């Protein structure tokens, strides 16, 4: 061994020198093409971010420029009026929207969480019908909202349920629209609870329901709440399905859940004001947009805060 290494020593030295110079070359001379390509790519990515933000920014600036003059307390407390645009407001629409969301929550929280618990905790995922249900819930989340409007019109307003054009029918339609979102978000929250917690509970002699009620659900509440808030904030902004199930565009009185005189909602009322040519109504529409944006941003921020603050780390 030693003889062989002695004979090969000069060759070794040569090889080491060669390797070193190659390494040096590789470390120093990054090809110019790579540098430029890197810069271009980073620039394109930054542009994508800017485009996404520019939309929101433009909307905010435009809404503020146009609507700041109409941002008064009257906006919230006064009913709409065609005769006095300077006194007109969103009162019935705001009350309508609040009642709509309350109805959505009433329906979507128990049904959505229940469905999620079934799919996540009870259903045997290896069975084809459970997989079919799963795929269809994913599909439902992608169905355009106008189609839910037609569904609501055919099955809730008329047809089997025959509720008529009342606010509760609008609530149910919106609830159906956001239900898949709630189910998907709740399932993810339930799935985030590690199996070791379920096993630990079951090994103490807890039933499956006790395990879900006392361990799995409490640990997933923040995630589920986040999902519900995001779903509800989507429901607030929906206009198309409401137009089909009877949200009349011009309501000057406070709506009630089951009153058949009609109801309105924020986005519907904004749409109505925006359609009018007069400057004052344009300002009203812009002010309405500001109110809605503030509410939506607040809700989404609250959802994010909730998730960050209370999410269980395992």
């Amino acid at each position, binding site marked *: 061994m030693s003889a062989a290494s002695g004979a090969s020593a000069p060759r070794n030295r040569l090889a080491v020198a060669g390797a070193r110079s190659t390494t040096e070359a590789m470390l120093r001379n990054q090809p110019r093409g790579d540098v430029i390509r890197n810069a271009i790519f980073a620039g394109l990515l930054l542009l994508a971010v800017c485009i996404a933000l520019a939309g929101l920014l433009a909307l905010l600036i435009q809404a503020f420029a146009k609507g700041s003059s109409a941002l008064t307390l009257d906006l919230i407390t006064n009913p709409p009026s065609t005769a006095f645009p300077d006194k007109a407001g969103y009162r019935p629409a705001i009350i309508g929207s609040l009642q709509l969301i309350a109805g959505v929550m009433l329906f979507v929280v128990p049904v959505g969480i229940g469905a999620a618990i079934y799919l996540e905790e009870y259903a*045997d995922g*290896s069975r084809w019908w459970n997989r079919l249900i799963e795929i269809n819930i994913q599909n439902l989340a992608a169905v355009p909202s106008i189609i839910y409007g037609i569904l609501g019109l055919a099955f809730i307003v008329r047809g089997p349920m025959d509720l008529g054009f009342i606010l509760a029918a609008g609530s149910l339609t919106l609830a159906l629209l956001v239900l898949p979102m709630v189910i998907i978000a709740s399932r993810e929250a339930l799935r985030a609870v*590690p199996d*070791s*917690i379920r*096993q*630990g*509970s*079951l*090994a*103490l*002699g*807890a*039933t499956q329901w*006790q395990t879900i009620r*006392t*361990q799995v659900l409490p*640990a997933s509440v923040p995630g589920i709440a986040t999902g519900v808030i995001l779903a509800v904030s989507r429901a607030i902004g929906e206009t198309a399905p409401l137009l089909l199930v009877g949200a009349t565009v011009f309501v000057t009185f406070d709506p009630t859940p089951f009153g058949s005189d009609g109801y309105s909602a924020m986005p519907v009322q904004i749409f109505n004001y925006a359609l009018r040519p007069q400057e004052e109504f344009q300002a009203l529409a812009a002010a309405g947009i500001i109110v809605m944006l503030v509410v939506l941003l607040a809700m989404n921020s609250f959802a994010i805060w909730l998730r960050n603050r209370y999410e*269980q780390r*395992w």
Partner: protein
Amino acid sequence: MLTEQAPKIEVRPEFQSSAPEAAREKVFELRDIEVLYSGVSAVKGISMEIGRNEVTAMIGPSGCGKSTLLRCLNRMNDLIPTAEVKGELLYHGEDLYGSGVDPVQVRKLIGMVFQKPNPFPKSIYDNVAFGPRILGRKEGLDEVVEKALRGAALWHEVKDRLKDNAFGLSGGQQQRLCIARCIAVKPDVILMDEPCSALDPISTGKIEDLMIELKNQFSIVIVTHNMQQAARVSDRTAFLMTELDATEHTRWGRLVEYDVTQQIFTNPSDKRTEDYVSGKVG
């Protein structure tokens, strides 16, 4: 009935339990047990008897089905939809897999401690009180919790912070909390699935001492990778090994030898056991 056992653990436990076979009270009797997942055997032909107030260790190489077998004993395998148990498994003479036996009731009597400490995301107190609460034993909860924590040699470390979240405890403390949680239910048997594999040597030592202490009240079955641990804590040791069929395509676990621990480690009757415990294979 256990008062004649020395409270001090000076004597190696295996010397205490070399009682004549007939005098041993049996907790489990396994007769030709086979566990299958989706129709494929994981363990096959297991027949053994597990004695009361003994620590029974199961050792063997990875994948030999020790944990699978352990999970049969409190019907945790029922949670896997594709699992199937064949053969006869008697618990105090009662068929554990007989019709009308409720796995939930089984698990109240036969508790389990897992490989990775799995405290609930609640306070230390609520972790221990969880079992009694779901069983509806709400009276004297404070005493039950204290007794369980003392039983798990954790009381002095946590008595001033019972309301703190259990996640703040160290790994070893968490595992002892899981043991406390288990004994608060007052089970008959405690199954331990590699309870020390995620712990440092000091924590491991504490839990081993605890096992020897606890066997006065409970029967313990422990799965371990650590042969020294089996030698230190157990009265009897079962050695399992993987067996291949003639075509070498399917494999399953088989019980090679089951005897008094000292016998297994000093004078095993099977060549394969000798090779394994002396470190030649596995």
